[in-house]
């Protein structure tokens, strides 16, 4: 072992990192070399000096100060969490809702157009169906309701006229053997030859049976004005418009 090798082993020898064989070789060299002996003693004393430095004095309340800082940090952290939750609450809720929706209805990429196509088809069908709807499709029902309403109002407003009309109708039938009971010349003949001879009393009797049957000309009094009303489909207001007015021809 030369002096350079011995110098490189001083530190390991001080820390007990040398093997027994290496330590014995180093000790033998130091015993024979005065220069290495001096350096060894100098380094030993230097390390002893460094290790002898005492720890600095501590502040009396070091632990308390640390604990105060820890508590202050916890309070600040909690406050920051609350504030951040308040700041992003709507966005967070929206994002979580969207995420949950995606997770719930997640489809494979191939199937993703399917719900879009279904929704589009349903929307198209609803819109076109509404636009193509015939405003007069409810014609029959509206006509029957209007007829009944008109007949009832006429009956309750002038109940005595029914008998007069019956006697007058009898006279008319007498003067007119044909006994025509059709509604206008423009309206089609709805009654047969026997119905034409039926007096108006039959119509009244039919009305008393509760409007179970009967056509428009058998329920409406002569000379009555019939207003056929139908709903106004294209108006936002729930009003009705007069689409046809006719008059019952007297016998």
């Amino acid at each position: 072992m030369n002096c350079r090798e011995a110098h490189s082993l001083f530190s390991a020898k001080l820390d007990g990192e040398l093997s027994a064989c290496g330590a014995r070789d180093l000790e033998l060299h130091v015993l024979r070399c005065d220069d290495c002996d001096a350096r060894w003693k100098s380094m030993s004393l230097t390390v002893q000096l460094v290790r002898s430095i005492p720890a600095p004095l501590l502040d009396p309340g070091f632990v308390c100060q640390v604990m105060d800082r820890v508590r202050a940090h916890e309070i600040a952290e909690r406050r920051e969490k609350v504030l951040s939750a308040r700041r992003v609450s709507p966005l967070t809720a929206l994002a979580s809702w969207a995420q949950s929706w995606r997770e719930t209805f997640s489809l494979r990429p191939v199937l993703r157009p399917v719900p879009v196509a279904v929704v589009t088809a349903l929307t198209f069908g609803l819109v076109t169906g509404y636009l193509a709807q015939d405003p007069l499709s409810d014609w029959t029902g509206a006509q029957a309701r209007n007829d009944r309403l008109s007949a009832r109002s006429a009956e309750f407003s002038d109940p005595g006229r029914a008998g007069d009309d019956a006697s007058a109708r009898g006279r008319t039938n007498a003067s007119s053997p044909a006994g025509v009971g059709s509604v206008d010349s423009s309206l089609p003949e709805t009654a047969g030859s026997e119905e034409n001879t039926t007096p108006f009393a039959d119509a009244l009797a039919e009305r008393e049976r509760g409007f179970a049957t009967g056509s428009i000309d058998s329920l409406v009094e002569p000379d009555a004005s019939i207003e056929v009303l139908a709903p106004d489909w294209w108006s936002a207001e729930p009003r009705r418009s007069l689409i046809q007015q006719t008059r019952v021809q007297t016998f």
Partner: protein
Amino acid sequence: MNGFTQTNAIETKRVAPVFTALPDESLMEHIVRGSEAAFAALVDRYRARIVNLVSRFINDRDRAQEISQEVFLRIFIHRERYQPTGKFSTWMYTIAVNLAKNEIRRRVRAKDSVSLDKLVEMTGDAGRFTADPGPRPDRGLHRREVQEQVGAALARLPERYREVIILRDVQQLSYEEIEKVLNIPGGTVRSRINRARTALQEMLSPMVEGGIDEL
């Protein structure tokens, strides 16, 4: 009883005796569960060593107290990152060394208090360190003066040498622990320790050759 011992006694009374006998890893388990008493016991156990480590690094006692508090605060904040498989002291020393290094770099960047020693330190050349050209100390040199000179010599060491010498000779860590704390190979640790001691030996040679009786 000196002031240091009195301070330790007062502080120790505030720590729950249940936790004083527990090993570090068990204390950390309690701390992770939110026990402040366990954390106080941990701080009381390591405060002297951490303050000593940091003060040797930055050579500023008051600032070392603040940085040491920051070290413990970081430990509490990141307590869940601690892996029980590793040694707790190694993890703690890593945090302390990093914070001390940050402080040194901050001071160097500030350049408002860069002294000649710091400029020499920034060069990182151990060969430029020479023995103190001041008067040769007497044999009866006062112990406090010797300690101050040793502290000053430590502060003049380059950072890479100072950190290994502080961890080895001041904190008494093993070579393996120094490897883990500094994250450098074992061979590098050994060579740096050897060079750091050689540099210190040169700086303190007037005092050492003059002989010191009081140590």
